[in-house]
């Protein structure tokens, strides 16, 4: 029998979770009739007596100074509506392991399984329709959760493993092949026929394991078919996309690069024998259907990429870049099968928060962008950066006889078909069909795994290491063993529950697992270190030397593939590309009429407004290395452009991290938009004090499914990246593409999500004392604008959008000239001539100055020169422009002689931003701007 313990706040204590839910019901559903919501935690235990459950309640679950509990009976009886929500069976509840552990520590040995859920008690009248809304929109994500209506009979999941299936592939017709592909393999006909021919030559049919491993290895997600395809652009052959970026980066021959595109992340030299690495990933598809789990496991996955770099790195920072539809999107405009942006934003933030905070990784650089066309699918980008000894920074290669050890979490039926799924279009039925493709992360498992693996690395036990991400063991072992060959004993893999078929074990995407190649003589010590950290480590295979990927389950051989065919047998695609710009009317630039209200509207725009409430929920200071925080200034509300860390505590060395993206420009002009993103990423770092010569880049292309036109856009964006590398000498060291941002509705509607290129920049700084923040430091200082721009290039700007105007005149960036600007700005910062620096981006120089004022609690007087059109002058968004507060006595002409600069105005005491336009003086109180700037995110996340 299951024992149930219910725990709640005692009467008289506020229940923040219940209050939050009630506020959310009013805010986003307009439900006013509920006076109070109480929450109850429900624990369930199997295999123990009622007396033992009572002991657990008193010793573990309930602290009677503020809580009360009941045993096997309801705790709340007077509510108008009581509903319990819990994870579905099979979705791993991370709390369950802790409950089992604590019970054992308390001497209770019979506990077989534990689970927990939440009851919500509503006081007030709710119609049937309102209840349904509360359940559907606020409480239950049917992908992973359910409403519990009765006490379950058992919490134990078990079953018999399914048999190994032989797929009669050799005899299949084209139609049958395609039917096999549609919901399982996601391969095209040519690929399927290549596999069919291969097995015809072998004279046998494949096992389900073999066909799944091939589909996974050849999936867009893992092999980047489009990026590697032969290209024909406007009829002319062109070098494949990936090769272009890699070749340009190699030719840059940057002296800091230790490992680029080789490993799970890109690595550069740091100081005193240390190296730093960076990796940025997307997790759009899972986040679209289960934003909390999707974002959390996105963070977990990119952290493991860093953990699996070289012989292992410690994760020291995390970044997050999101694109959503605006939170005020009417419900009826949310496409069928999709979730509302407010729910997505709140849950994605919660997922990133809980994974990073619990893992002890500071999330301290990021941004959120809003555009209507993200309503069908959000873009969720997460990055991670790591620290490792330079001597252990190169990807290891297993040797024959090395053992394959799985370290960390157990394998379950989680995320099956995640790799192939994220390569498929999103459709209205995606939520139902691919429910098992999402899971809940377990950051504590990953943290202890990281602790153990770093200890093993320091003892020299790790030959090679990689994470089990998309594609599970299939991908991890298949790649690690690509050159030598590997055999896996699938029956030795530790499982969460019985009943997994061999192919499921191979493909499972259960999180928090790392695969380590270890010399046979070191295996025992590795297992010992792991045990000391409560981490499971199991030898599951060996590297063979036969260049085959084989696996057995008991005595049965279930997989036997030639590594050559697996990795090189895929037919290379030829893709055609042809870019045609969208038809965009060319409106005249609207004149700036009411400056105060325009500036307030700009500051309150979704893409400009303060994102501080999000940052405050991330533990951005853990690890003690923060030397330039995301927000600083007098009231800690002024945003900085980049983060600077001192990962070697006590040493002066800085790691700088920044990024740039602009989905709106990408759609108007992929080449100019891509250059803008590159320029913005680097300028953010330079504004904080980075030396442009010591920065490297990471690319993330998040694109609609590439038809000819979108592939044309991609081709142009890649060209821009290549031109940027050649002009600046800054190489890419890592990158990723995700080409599935297309939504197909049940009625045939097609929504292309705007193409996103996210550029991340990271690098080193010799002394963080020579860095600057963005908050103004004192009155009477010169404010200068440094950089190249053509003010009328206003396309994509907030200013135009607010005026309902459109244009094709995108801001164009010339990277060669930009290098001169960066050098000049960097020289000035290093010389101590700059007291505050802010990069110009969304909202233009006016928004930049306003943010600097808010940070410094100082005013400014800005002069629009005669003859300048005030709108473009103040609100142009060309990347690579800087607003600088100069130290008294600093001479801008001497500092910036070689590049365009002009005096914008000067800083003043008093909380007012004043603009002089000829005879006119417009005074805007900072308090007004601050209120407008803070309001949007406060409406989403609360005060």
């Amino acid at each position: 029998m299951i024992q149930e313990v219910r725990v709640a706040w005692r009467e008289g204590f506020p229940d923040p979770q219940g209050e939050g839910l009630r506020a959310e019901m009013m805010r986003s559903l307009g439900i006013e009739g509920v006076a109070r919501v109480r929450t109850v935690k429900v624990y369930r235990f199997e295999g123990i007596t009622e007396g033992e459950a009572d002991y657990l309640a008193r010793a573990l679950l309930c602290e009677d100074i503020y809580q009360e509990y009941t045993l096997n009976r309801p705790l709340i009886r007077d509510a108008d509506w009581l509903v319990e929500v819990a994870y579905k069976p099979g979705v791993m509840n991370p709390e369950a392991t802790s409950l089992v552990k604590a019970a054992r520590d308390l001497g209770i040995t019979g506990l077989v399984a534990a689970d927990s859920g939440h009851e919500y008690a509503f006081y007030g009248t709710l119609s049937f329709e309102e209840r349904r809304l509360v359940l559907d929109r606020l409480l239950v994500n049917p992908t992973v959760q359910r409403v519990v209506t009765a006490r379950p009979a058992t919490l134990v999941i078990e079953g018999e493993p399914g048999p190994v299936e032989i797929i009669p592939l050799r005899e299949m017709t084209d139609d049958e092949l395609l039917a096999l592909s549609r919901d399982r393999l996601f391969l095209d006909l040519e690929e399927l026929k290549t596999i069919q021919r291969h097995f015809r030559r072998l004279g046998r049919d494949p096992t389900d394991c073999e066909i799944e491993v091939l589909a996974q290895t050849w999936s867009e997600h893992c092999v980047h078919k489009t990026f590697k395809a032969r290209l024909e652009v406007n009829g002319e052959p062109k070098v494949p996309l990936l090769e272009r970026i890699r070749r340009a980066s190699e030719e840059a021959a940057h002296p800091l690069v230790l490992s680029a595109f080789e490993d799970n992340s890109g690595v550069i030299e740091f100081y005193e024998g240390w190296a730093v690495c960076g990796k940025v990933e997307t997790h759009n598809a899972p986040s679209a259907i289960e934003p909390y789990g999707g974002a959390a496991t996105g963070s977990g996955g990119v952290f493991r990429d860093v953990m699996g770099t070289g012989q292992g790195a410690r994760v020291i920072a995390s970044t997050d870049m999101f694109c959503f539809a605006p939170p005020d999107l009417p419900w009826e405009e949310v496409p069928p099968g999709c979730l509302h942006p407010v729910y997505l934003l709140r849950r994605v933030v919660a997922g990133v928060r809980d994974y990073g905070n619990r893992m002890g990784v500071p999330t301290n650089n990021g941004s959120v962008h809003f555009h209507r066309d993200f309503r069908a699918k959000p873009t969720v980008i997460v990055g991670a950066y790591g620290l490792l000894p330079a001597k252990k920074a190169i990807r290891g290669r297993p040797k024959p006889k090395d053992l394959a050890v799985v370290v960390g979490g157990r394998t379950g039926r989680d995320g099956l078909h995640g790799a192939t799924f994220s390569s498929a279009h999103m459709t209205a039925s995606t939520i139902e069909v691919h429910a098992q493709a999402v899971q809940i992360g377990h950051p504590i498992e990953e943290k202890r795994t990281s602790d153990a693996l770093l200890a093993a690395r320091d003892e020299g036990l790790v030959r090679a290491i990689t994470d089990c991400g998309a594609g599970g063991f299939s991908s991890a072992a298949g790649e690690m063993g690509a050159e030598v060959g590997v055999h896996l004993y699938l029956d030795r893999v530790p499982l969460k529950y019985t009943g997994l078929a061999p192919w499921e074990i191979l493909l499972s995407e259960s999180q928090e697992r790392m695969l380590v190649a270890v010399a046979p003589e070191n295996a025992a010590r590795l297992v010992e270190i792991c045990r000391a950290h409560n981490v499971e480590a199991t030898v599951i295979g060996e590297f063979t030397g036969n260049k085959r990927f084989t696996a057995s389950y008991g005595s049965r051989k279930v997989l036997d593939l030639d590594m050559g065919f697996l990795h090189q047998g895929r037919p290379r695609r030829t893709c055609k590309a042809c870019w045609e710009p969208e038809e965009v009317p060319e409106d005249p630039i609207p004149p700036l009429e009411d400056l105060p209200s325009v500036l307030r509207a700009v500051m309150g725009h979704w893409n400009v407004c303060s994102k501080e409430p999000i940052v405050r929920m991330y533990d951005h200071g853990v690890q003690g290395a923060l030397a330039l925080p995301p927000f600083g200034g007098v009231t800690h509300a002024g945003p900085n452009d980049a983060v600077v860390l001192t990962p070697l505590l006590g040493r002066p060395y800085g790691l700088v991290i920044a990024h740039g993206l602009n989905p709106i420009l990408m759609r108007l002009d992929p080449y100019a938009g891509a250059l803008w993103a590159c320029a913005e990423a680097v300028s953010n770092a330079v504004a904080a004090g980075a030396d442009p010569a010591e920065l490297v880049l990471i690319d993330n292309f998040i694109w609609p499914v590439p038809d000819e036109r979108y592939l044309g856009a991609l081709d142009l964006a890649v060209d821009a990246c290549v031109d940027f590398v050649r002009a600046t000498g800054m190489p890419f060291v890592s990158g990723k593409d995700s080409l599935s941002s297309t939504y197909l509705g049940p009625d045939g509607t097609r929504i292309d999500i705007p193409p996103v290129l996210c550029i991340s920049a990271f690098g080193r700084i010799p002394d963080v004392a020579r860095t600057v923040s963005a908050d103004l430091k004192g009155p009477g200082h010169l404010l200068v604008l440094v950089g190249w721009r053509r003010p009328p290039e206003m396309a994509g700007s907030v200013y135009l959008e607010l005026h309902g105007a459109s244009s094709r005149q995108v801001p164009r960036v010339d990277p060669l000239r930009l290098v001169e600007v960066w050098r000049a700005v960097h020289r000035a910062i290093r010389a101590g001539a700059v007291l505050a620096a802010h990069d110009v981006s969304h909202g233009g120089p006016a928004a930049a100055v306003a943010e600097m004022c808010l940070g410094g609690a100082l005013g400014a007087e800005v002069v629009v020169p005669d003859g300048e059109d005030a709108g473009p002058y103040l609100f142009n968004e060309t990347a690579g422009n800087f607003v600088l507060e100069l130290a008294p006595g600093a001479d801008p002409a001497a500092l910036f002689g070689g590049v365009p600069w002009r005096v914008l105005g000067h800083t003043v005491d008093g909380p007012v931003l004043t603009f002089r336009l000829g005879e006119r003086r417009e005074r805007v109180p900072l308090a007004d701007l601050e209120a407008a700037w803070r309001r949007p995110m406060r409406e989403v996340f609360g005060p």
Partner: protein
Amino acid sequence: MKPRACLLRAEGTNCDVETFYALELAGADPRMVHVNELRARSQRLRDYQLLVIPGGFTYGDDVAAGKILAVELISFLREEISEFVAAGKPVLGICNGFQVLVRTGLLPFREAGRVRAALIPNRSGRFECRWVRLRVEETPCVFTRGLAGRVIEMPVAHAEGRFYAPPPVMEELETRRQVVFRYVDGAGAPTAEYPANPNGSEAAVAGICDAAGTILGLMPHPERYVRPVQHPNWRRLGISGEGHGLAVFRNAVAYAAGL
């Protein structure tokens, strides 16, 4: 000789590296000790002069923050810890470590196994990572010698930091001068206002000690402000010298060295 500091780790401990650094900087000889090593008796608490339980999310904050580790310590190490405490050796719990100390009952009254106060979910209902101002009170606390009356700055980063104790316990804490740190506003007065008081703590309590002053628990993170560049505004304020948090560690080391 440098006093040996036992920096206790468990699954999900995550402020260990910077706390280790702060201890070293303050002149201690710290060692990271996993709770498993103490349970296996391969490490003994008695070999140390100072015990520090750092921040983090031990066991994922499951059930309640610090609860699972508190249960583990009470179940397996009650005697060793009681002996350590009875010998007057200093114990410091930061953030999750404070939650653990309260849930073991070591704070406020050295009653191992008896929960007399609690750190409950923040009034705002969410995780809060922000800098706060703290007034150091006049107390017997050995970690804050020479600091009483000062207002210092440190960051907090927690979702469950609201200090609560039933009125009689609260009264006793005040009478015995066990409240060591209080959240204060810009004028230096204890405050219930968010966000200066980031979690809604009773009487603006940010940290307490036991009656003897050798056990200290606090929600803010002194280890995150031991050097000037860790302050978010070191540039504008021209901060040099030491971060405010270092004094806590220096006092701990000085006291442990004198035992």
